[in-house]
């Protein structure tokens, strides 16, 4: 019953009050909050897609030959859609919880703990949407310049896909936020989980697993599904089975991760 309450708290006004609080802070500091983090995928795009891509032959994607920059464009959207909510829910949420005591202040009101967790999840996902929008704009510019060849109208859908998957990534990150003893320990979820996951998910290079187990694992990886869904839309105008895959893998991550985040955060913040 309490698990169900934790999940349905997404629709509670209190979760959106927490979200609103984070959004207002973001709007106050939007220049510093947007420009530097959003530049990272842009630099990656220029360095890998254009620079490194010049040395790579075209790639066969679902029967269509595409250049490496086009392949990486979708990968960077997935990379951004994963990294932004993941790191937001790791670092920014940790700062709010541990250093700023923002959560203590929230919990001293009518806001309950599942709403704090949902507020962070929703906010992480929306931050992902914002950064994906910037990356999508850059991809659109490169499409006009002829560097990539994508169906630009589908760039408008990318932030929405990012929001869906972003909820899963933020809920996953909040588990670590609840258990790391100090901010230095964030290196574990960053370097042992974040980086590998963002690299081996058909983002920067295609992976064709030989074993069925590995193939099955890839299907439940929302980063992979996001990358393939975005690529399918941008290259072919058709996500194939990856839209269902994205929704399914998001649910597979989101439900248990949210329940676990609420439980671990309760222990961490309330000592209960």
């Amino acid at each position, binding site marked *: 019953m309490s698990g169900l309450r934790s999940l349905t708290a997404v629709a509670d*006004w*209190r979760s959106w*009050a927490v979200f*609103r*609080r984070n959004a*207002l*802070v973001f709007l*106050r*500091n939007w220049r510093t909050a947007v420009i530097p983090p959003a530049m990272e995928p842009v630099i990656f795009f220029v360095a890998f897609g254009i620079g490194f891509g010049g040395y790579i032959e075209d790639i066969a994607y679902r029967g269509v030959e595409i250049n490496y920059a086009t392949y990486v464009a979708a990968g960077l959207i997935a990379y951004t859609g994963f990294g932004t909510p993941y790191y937001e829910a790791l670092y920014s949420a940790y700062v709010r919880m541990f250093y*700023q*005591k*923002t959560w*203590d*202040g*929230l*919990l*001293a*009101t*009518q*806001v309950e703990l599942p709403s704090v967790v949902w507020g962070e999840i929703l906010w992480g996902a929306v931050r992902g949407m914002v950064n994906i929008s910037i990356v999508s704009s850059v991809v659109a510019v490169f499409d006009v310049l002829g560097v990539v060849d994508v169906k630009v109208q589908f760039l408008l859908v990318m932030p929405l896909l990012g929001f869906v998957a972003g909820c899963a990534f933020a809920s996953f990150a909040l588990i670590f936020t609840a258990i790391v003893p100090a901010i230095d320990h964030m290196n574990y979820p960053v370097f042992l989980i974040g980086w590998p996951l963002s690299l081996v998910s058909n983002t920067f290079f295609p992976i064709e697993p030989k074993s069925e187990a590995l193939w099955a694992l890839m299907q439940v990886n929302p980063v992979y599904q996001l990358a393939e869904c975005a690529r399918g839309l941008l290259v072919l105008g058709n996500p194939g089975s990856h839209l269902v895959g994205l929704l399914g893998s998001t649910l597979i991550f989101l439900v248990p991760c949210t329940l676990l985040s609420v439980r671990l955060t309760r222990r961490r913040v*309330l*000592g*209960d």
Partner: protein
Amino acid sequence: MTTAILEARGLTKKYGNRVVVDRLDLSCRRGTVLGLLGPNGAGKTTTLRMLYGFVPPDDGSIYYAGKRFSECRAEAKRSIGVSTQDDSLDYDFTVAQNLFIYASYFRPRVDDLERRVAELLDQFELAPYANASPHVLSGGFIRRLLIARSIVHRPSVLFLDEPTTGLDPSARLDVWELIDALRAEGLAVVLTTHYMDEAERLSDELLVIHEGRNVAHGEPHHVIDSVLGDHVIIVPRSEPAREEIAAWLHARGAEQVATVLGELRVPVSKEDLAALTARFTEATWQVRPPNLDDLFIALARRNGRSV
């Protein structure tokens, strides 16, 4: 006597096998201050955290305005204001924005919020800093803002967890004045503090907690009398018969013989004082009424800590 707006019965909290709060009863009426007092680890903060819903009790019940907290949690939390011990201000917002954003965490929404915020900024003398970051505030003004924030939604019960810890004497007095004014406005205030003078002056009722249990409850002077007795004698370090006096008092059943910087401090009854005066005619000592410092020291000694 008005009925209690807050009432708790049989509150119990365990962490593992350790009983932190043990069958505690308490109540607080509108326009009064209930002081929760006890040494470190007595269970004060855990009691407070159960009362305002941070942690659920393992046993016992909490009632707000006669309604069981667990059955009307959202409604009850709308009527509670909490100022935690830690500074939980939102430093991403200005002083005034802190009040506005905090009010957004309550439903029904705060009536006429603009006016309410202006009123609080004036009442707490925060108006000159309204558009500044809380970073510019001194410790005393940060505490003012924390208290102002905790009542922005016009609660009926206010919890203050050590509201003057770390403040200089002048800022402490200012906070006392504010708490007194809030009591006069009809708020029920539940206060925890380490400062004996603060508890004694501000509280209409005291609840002394020791190892999670109620050891004394009532008006401050009654509480002191019930735990300590009529007088405290202070035997100076320079008194040659100091050890002999301590042994004599101990033999008469005085359990709370404390040594503070070489001085003996012993709570005694009228009868003991008369007998002591007759027995040690040459010795010198001071006699004063007991205060909450003595109570605190006595409780700490019961707890097996040195003083």
